């Protein structure tokens, strides 16, 4: 596990699962100025991710240690510059994951819900296009690297 920590921002890149309820609670714990916590959980879907008709039995996430944490930290710094935030938490797993397992968590605390929602979605959109993670699906026919989705580039470019 690797962590980068600012006052109320933290990033973890880890193989282990995480406790969503505890992470969300930590974003407002003892901080009565927090009125809103928006969060996101991404999970491994079993259906045909690549549209090629075969079920995904598992996937393996590769990442670029060092750059991963650095890029997530930069995304969070960018979000803090755009919105009034009181805390952010990003957790991204790597290694082998089966359908239904959690992959990623993004949580954002703010005084107001508009900022919390916008920053949470912004961080997810950027994470999908800027953080160096690569998915390889295990299918009955063998391993298959997932192609980048144009929809992700479009989602991220909304914020440019």
């Amino acid at each position: 596990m690797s962590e980068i920590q600012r006052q109320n921002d933290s990033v973890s890149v880890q193989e282990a699962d995480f406790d969503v309820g505890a992470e969300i609670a930590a974003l407002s714990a003892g901080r009565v100025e927090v009125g809103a916590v928006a969060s996101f959980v991404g999970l491994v879907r079993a259906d045909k991710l690549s549209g090629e008709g075969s079920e995904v039995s598992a996937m393996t996430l590769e990442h670029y240690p060092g750059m991963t944490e650095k890029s997530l930290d930069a995304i969070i710094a960018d979000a803090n510059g755009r919105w009034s935030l009181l805390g952010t938490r990003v957790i991204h797993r790597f290694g082998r994951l089966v359908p239904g397992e959690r992959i990623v968590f993004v949580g954002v605390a703010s005084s107001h819900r508009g900022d919390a929602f916008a920053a949470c979605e912004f961080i997810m959109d950027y994470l999908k296009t800027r953080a160096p993670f690569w998915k390889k699906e295990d299918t009955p026919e063998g391993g298959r690297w997932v192609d980048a989705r144009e929809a992700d580039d479009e989602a991220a470019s909304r914020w440019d």
Partner: protein
Amino acid sequence: MSVKVLYFASLRETLGYSHETLTLSADIATLGDLRAHLAHRGGVWEALGEGRNVRAAINQEMVGADVAVADRDEIAFFPPVTGG
């Protein structure tokens, strides 16, 4: 000038290398020059050729082909990211 070059994901598998250390000749000034140099090795290395969808980072920051490379840089080539 000596640089470390890393390869990730499908590119790593195609090339059969996860990393190498290279001593660069003086005519390699930018990331684009380095990529062209590597693609010029031929065979599987054509995966780094022009028109192939490859991204790159210098010292763990994603950058474009015009950026200059410097001695002791950590350079990485990889496919578009697919995390989250």
